[in-house]
């Protein structure tokens, strides 16, 4: 379609919003290299020097080192457990045509309507009852459950596109159910697995409220999202340190996004459509 001259207001509005998205981030990135005086005097100027002083201060005062390790640990283990549970489940639901299977699928899709936040306090009680309160372990067990509806539904859709003849041929050669899952379904729905992994990577890495309540403030255990807001209290109003710390926590997500931009957009769009 032709975009005529009358599109000028649209161009202006869209780019204004784009500027509104960039300016705070630019301010953030620039401030990470500045002192407070510099920030107040010239909020939009480029920093005078690119020292990493703010980054090291932020890193040490909020114990970001262990926090990043904890976040990585929780994210990776939860992702592994999610796939371990969701792949066989999706496999089973995609192949069977029975009533029971379709009922199970409905139960999983209804999960979209349960907002995770609603059950914060009962989950806290569950953590206390299992003796896993104030541990990362509980989060590793808990996060996959929250990811189950989306993961199962997306994987089922991908697995339904795999022709049945593939499995029948393998069966002729004497393949077991496990072999069929491991050597036919899993490799053939790698795009689906990538979608699920990316979506859950974002949610798990960015998870805040549950980590705050369940893992708690212990620097040995807490994740990076819980450690980050403590910078506000520790550094008072040293914006340089505050912004430097925030930038540090964004780097992993940023790298993944820039490398896998197309893939990630497709993943998020797919995820939202299935919801």
């Amino acid at each position, binding site marked *: 379609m032709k975009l005529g001259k009358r599109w000028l207001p649209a161009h202006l509005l*869209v780019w204004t919003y784009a500027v509104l998205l960039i300016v705070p981030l630019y301010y953030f990135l620039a401030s990470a290299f500045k002192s407070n005086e510099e920030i107040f005097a010239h909020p939009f100027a480029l920093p005078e020097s690119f020292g990493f002083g703010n980054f090291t201060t932020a890193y040490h005062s909020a114990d970001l080192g262990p926090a990043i390790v904890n976040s990585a640990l929780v994210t990776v283990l939860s992702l592994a457990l999610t796939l371990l*549970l969701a792949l066989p489940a999706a496999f089973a639901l995609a192949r069977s045509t029975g009533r029971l299977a379709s009922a199970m699928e409905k139960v999983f899709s209804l999960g979209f309507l349960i907002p995770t936040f609603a059950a914060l*306090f*009962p989950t806290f009680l569950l953590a206390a009852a299992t003796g896993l309160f104030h541990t990362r372990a509980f989060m590793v067990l*808990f996060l996959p459950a929250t990811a189950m509806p989306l993961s199962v539904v997306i994987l089922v859709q991908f697995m339904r596109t795999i022709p049945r003849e593939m499995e029948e041929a393998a069966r002729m050669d004497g393949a077991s159910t496990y072999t069929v899952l491991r050597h036919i379904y899993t490799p053939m729905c790698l795009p689906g697995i990538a979608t699920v992994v990316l979506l859950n990577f974002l949610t798990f890495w*960015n998870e805040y409220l549950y980590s705050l309540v369940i893992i708690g403030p212990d620097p040995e255990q807490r994740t990076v999202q819980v450690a980050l807001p403590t910078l*506000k209290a520790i550094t008072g109003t040293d914006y340089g340190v505050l912004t430097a710390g925030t930038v540090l926590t964004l780097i992993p997500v940023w790298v993944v996004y820039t490398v896998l931009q197309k893939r990630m957009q497709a993943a998020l769009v797919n995820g939202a459509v299935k919801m």
Partner: protein
Amino acid sequence: MTTLTSTPGGAAVRHPAPPATTARSRTPRQGGTILAVPALVWYAIFMIGPVAAIFVIAALHWPGMLQPVSFAGLGNVRTVLDDPVFWDAVRNTAVQLAVALPIMIVCAYMLGYYVAQRPPGHRVIRYLLFIPGLISTPAKAMVFYAALSPDGLVNGALQGAGLGSLTDAWLASPSTALACLIALDVWSGIGFTAVLFAARLGSVPDDLGEAAQLDGAGHWRTMWRIHFPVIRDYVGVVTMLQFLWTLFGSAQHVLLLTQGGPGSSSTTLSFLVYQKAFIAADLGYSQTVGVILFLAGLVGLLAIRRAFRQNY
């Protein structure tokens, strides 16, 4: 399964497939549904169980973790309904939804339509739109904290523009605290939602819009009269999602930025659930609000679903 064969007369006739094939493909496979059981059990323990527990705890009188628990029946409901703070939270949540949702959905739809037309620079725009969707809640809150604090970005910009009289302690002022939270929702929500709409609009066939333009429709008409009805049910799904995220997700922003204050001017329902459970230790009260929130979510979902129902 059906097969297509040519008869001597030249016409194609559909033959039903031999019944044997149909029967075979319907037989249950070995090692079937049982593989879904671990995932289902996991999901039941960590999600369904806690959600069910909300309803039980809401009926208990439980004034603190280590305090004796007694059955309260509907007593908590009466306490909650008599509490002016609860009604403040209801009002704040209603304002938040009534302002944020329409702005977000309308702007995101128009932005999504814009991007879907592939104007110059649309790749850059697409990349940028996604950024708020990647940033974690605490990081977003830090951005807004740095921007809105008394000596932050906004006040600095106002002073630079010679509008020093307009500066304010945005997050600490009763008249602007809630507005800041709404601005945060809208700021980060539009971009992400627009990408979703752009993706969906991308799969609408091009000739549909072109035909409308040949008939003399401008972009405005094409956008609202042709494309909007086509993806109407998708807009409904996205609206439902944003509704849930705003209704339940606001607790985190409130906790990080204003703690519900000053007074109760920025207390939302979901923050009230958090605050009563983990700060005030009034567990029955907290979960009663949780139940109310849950029901509000359900009613809202049904209402949105109804509003966006396809009506050809």
